[in-house]
């Protein structure tokens, strides 16, 4: 062996003996944020999570992820006003993910392929629980309790389950075979469903409470609000929801030459479209809300599914936004028309918003019929004491617990500030979780993750991609029975799912592993404890922060290192 007089050598990789982690003052950590779509979903779905399963090529897992939270995705995918999309971070880049269309696609796949619900952890001691009202709220609660092993009795005054989904929402938006399939799958979990059973009539609250350890009340709102214009009411007037339900049940609706519908919710718009299709030449909709536009604040827009509004305008419904009816023009008891006036919801001295009508903007609108669609209250028959004269169950907490009644829980429209199927589904799930804990003598606890802001994403790693819109029947082909919006074709659905940015959740893109100059990110085949496939090697991490900057989805943040 020659002796090296000028020179030296080193063994390969021996620098590992030098722990550069000492240099660090900040350290990278994984942080699982809530995606904005998640925070915005009234049902509590985490679209980010199920879209991830979809992107991985596992649609069934994607559906199961939804089904843990929402047992009616084929329904909500069709009718939900999708606040998730309004909140979607991708809106700031090009356009939001068509979450509702993908939810529907998955829901339809589950029906088509007869997928069964994913299992849930059962309870040690199953208990008897009663659920009043088989609308989406009651169904959701019954589902969550039954899958945990509880003995659920579900009662409804009507002959069939579904609540307003069945009795009021037109088939053109929600085909009944879809509804039947999703409800059937829930009831098949072993729920005892008792139709024709009205609380306060065939059933009695005291008895229910005696026979069950807990009761969930989701009776919806079935009592039309009183309506008059300055004390005037046409003698034969009928509320919109009643007419709509009659149409759904019997296929009949009045057909005057012209009609004015007063109100700006789903009921008003649905009835307007039904009457237009039934042959009413002029259908007017007078609403205090505004149409989407530059001078309308988001909270002031008509409270309907955005595309429904678009389709209604296409079909020729005449909207009179930011208007109210000031006077009825009557000849004897016959209605001749109305006097409208402009108004806005404006803050008053206290800061609270109230309606301010503007003198000098009065206009006359002639019509043969006026139909109020101004909303409903809870029908308290049988549980008057619980409401104490109030129109809704307002004092309930977020788990639906009523003060002073530890075994009573409420949810859905009956709370007064919900108004969507997804909201009712979320209430049903939360109440079921709280009931499950109550039965075990425990309290529900919050686990909230902060929402990932758009500026925490590194958009350099995403490419522009157009949003895929589902096909819609042209106006002239629309009927009273055929569904108007079609499904996304399979390939389009996959492409659309791939647009999701995975806000706040590792997408295993390898960026951190690729870009760490210090080999301090270790990739693992097995899943690390936080669910990702990467761990930081703090013995070498110098805390440069590059991994955090280059993580596309905000999953890495730098924190002080002591």
């Amino acid at each position, binding site marked *: 062996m020659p002796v090296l007089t000028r020179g030296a050598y080193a063994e390969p990789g021996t*620098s590992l003996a030098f722990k550069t982690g000492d240099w660090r003052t900040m350290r990278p950590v994984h*942080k699982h944020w*809530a995606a904005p779509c998640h925070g915005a979903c009234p049902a509590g779905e985490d679209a980010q999570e199920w879209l991830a399963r979809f992107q991985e090529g596992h649609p069934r897992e994607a559906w199961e*992820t939804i089904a843990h939270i929402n047992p009616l995705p084929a329904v909500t995918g069709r009718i939900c006003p999708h606040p998730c999309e309004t909140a979607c971070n991708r809106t700031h880049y090009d356009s939001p993910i068509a979450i509702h269309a993908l939810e529907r696609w998955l829901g339809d796949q589950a029906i088509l392929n007869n997928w069964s619900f994913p299992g849930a952890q059962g309870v040690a001691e199953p208990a008897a629980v009663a659920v009043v009202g088989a609308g989406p709220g009651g169904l959701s609660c019954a589902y969550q309790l039954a899958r945990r092993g509880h003995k659920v009795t579900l009662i409804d005054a009507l002959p069939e389950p579904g609540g307003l989904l069945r009795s009021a929402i037109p088939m053109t938006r929600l085909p009944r075979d879809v509804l039947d399939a999703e409800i059937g799958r829930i009831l098949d979990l072993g729920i005892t469903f008792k139709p024709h059973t009205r609380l306060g009539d065939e059933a009695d609250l005291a008895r229910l409470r005696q026979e069950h350890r807990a009761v969930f009340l989701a009776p919806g709102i079935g009592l039309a609000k009183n309506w008059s214009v300055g004390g005037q009411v046409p003698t034969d007037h009928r509320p919109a929801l009643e007419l709509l339900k009659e149409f759904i049940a019997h296929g009949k609706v009045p057909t005057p030459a012209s009609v004015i519908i007063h109100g700006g919710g789903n009921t008003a718009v649905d009835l307007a479209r039904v009457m237009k299709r039934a042959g009413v030449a002029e259908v007017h909709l007078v609403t205090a809300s505004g149409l989407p536009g530059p001078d309308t604040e988001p909270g002031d827009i008509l409270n309907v599914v955005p595309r429904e509004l678009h389709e209604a305008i296409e079909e020729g419904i005449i909207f009179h936004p930011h208007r109210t009816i000031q006077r009825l023009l009557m000849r004897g008891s016959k209605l001749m028309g109305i006097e409208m006036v402009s108004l806005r919801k404006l803050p008053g001295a206290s800061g609270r918003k109230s309606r301010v009508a503007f003198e000098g903007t009065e206009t006359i609108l002639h019509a043969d019929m006026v139909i109020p669609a101004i909303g409903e209250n809870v029908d308290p028959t049988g549980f008057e004491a619980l409401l104490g004269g109030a129109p809704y169950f307002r004092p309930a907490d977020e788990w639906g617990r009523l003060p002073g009644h530890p075994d009573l829980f409420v949810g859905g429209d009956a709370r007064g500030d919900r108004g969507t199927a997804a909201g009712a589904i979320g209430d049903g799930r939360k109440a079921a979780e709280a009931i499950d804990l109550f039965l075990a003598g425990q309290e529900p606890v919050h686990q909230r993750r902060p929402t990932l802001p758009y500026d925490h994403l590194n958009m350099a790693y995403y490419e522009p991609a157009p949003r895929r819109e589902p096909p819609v029947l042209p106006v002239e082909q629309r009927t009273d029975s055929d569904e108007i919006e079609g499904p996304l074709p399979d390939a389009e659905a996959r492409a659309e799912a791939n647009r999701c940015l995975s806000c706040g959740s590792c997408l295993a*893109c*390898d960026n951190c592993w690729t870009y760490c100059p210090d080999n301090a990110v270790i*990739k693992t085949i097995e899943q690390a404890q936080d669910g990702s496939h990467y761990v930081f090697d703090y013995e070498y991490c110098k805390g*440069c922060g590059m991994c955090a900057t*280059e993580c596309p989805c905000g999953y890495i943040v730098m924190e002080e290192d002591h």
Partner: protein
Amino acid sequence: MAKTPETAKKAPSKAASKPAKAKTAKAGDAKSGGAKGKSAAPAETPSRKVAAGVGTAPGVDAQALGGELAELRRRQPRFRGLEAGHRACQGCGEALGARLVMEAAGPDVMVANATGCLEVFTTPWPQSAWRVPWIHSLFENAAAVASGMEAALKARGHRTKVMAFGGDGSTFDIGFQALSGMLERTHNVLYVCFDNEAYMNTGIQRSSSTPHAAATTTSPAGSQRMGKRHLKKDLLQIIAAHHVPYAASASVAYAADLRRKVRRAIEIEGPTFLLLHVPCPLGWGHDGAKTIEIARLAVQTGLFPVVELERNELAGVMPIRQPRPVSDYLKLQNRFRHLFGNDHRARQEREHLQALADHNIATYHLLGEEPDPLDTEGADTVRRGGLIA
């Protein structure tokens, strides 16, 4: 491998550069994990028990994964040609560039490395971060040493690929004639120039690669001059003029593109050359967390064109569909800070740099012709489950 203790002992004095601040989070925020494959808790969920604290401490995770971190490190599904423990600054683009080149090159290579940061921070004697045969040449002769290594291997019938590594000072300036000779003699060597646009190891002196108007310790900004007076030498064209089979530029910001180019160059029997743009947080005066962002902006502004030349013909460019203004790039770096003052020359020099970028865009047709919506042809597009190579 022979190596002079004198040079080897030198550790970069700049190691303790300013701590990087990225997205700062409150302590404890990392507790809620759950991304892939786990049914994550919804934003609001009650739970029977308080969720088990999911820590990110290395020990905890390693155990959960059934192994020590060292073991997990050994099992990395990529070639670790350049290991951790090296002394590069926080966020060093050159260290990253070298790591990426080694990964793509694989284990059957030998390296001759010129004096410079890369050589110094990877081999503080008696340690080395390299896991392939590696030799420290001198500042000026990496190409000559690599030529000799290649000739010797050839004589012995080995097919191991030889690579020569040098900084921009070593490549554009002092080692240039040795490099030219290596190309002219058609040695089967891949020469990689780690272009951090100055002599960083000796304290940020200007090189012929330093861009116009950048301030260095030998081209300071002041009343006389707005940083470097001269232009960045167009070395790639000079290399290509040797009629070599392959000469390309690449950036650490586009790892997938870089890997492809290394593999392509290694496959070619003959002299090949890669000019790799590697930001230097210390010398350029930027936050170490922004190394990639800055490298990307150099490409997206047109200041650093990413191109491939075969036998002196343009064979490919990384297109920029929507060029960014050069000021987006300049304002992140202290070496260009004087270009944002009130001095009338500041505006003039910014416009000059913009014109140089526009010139590159026009010369290399960087805007691309096809209506491909992807800038960079997807080299930086993430997909769930990994980058597309």
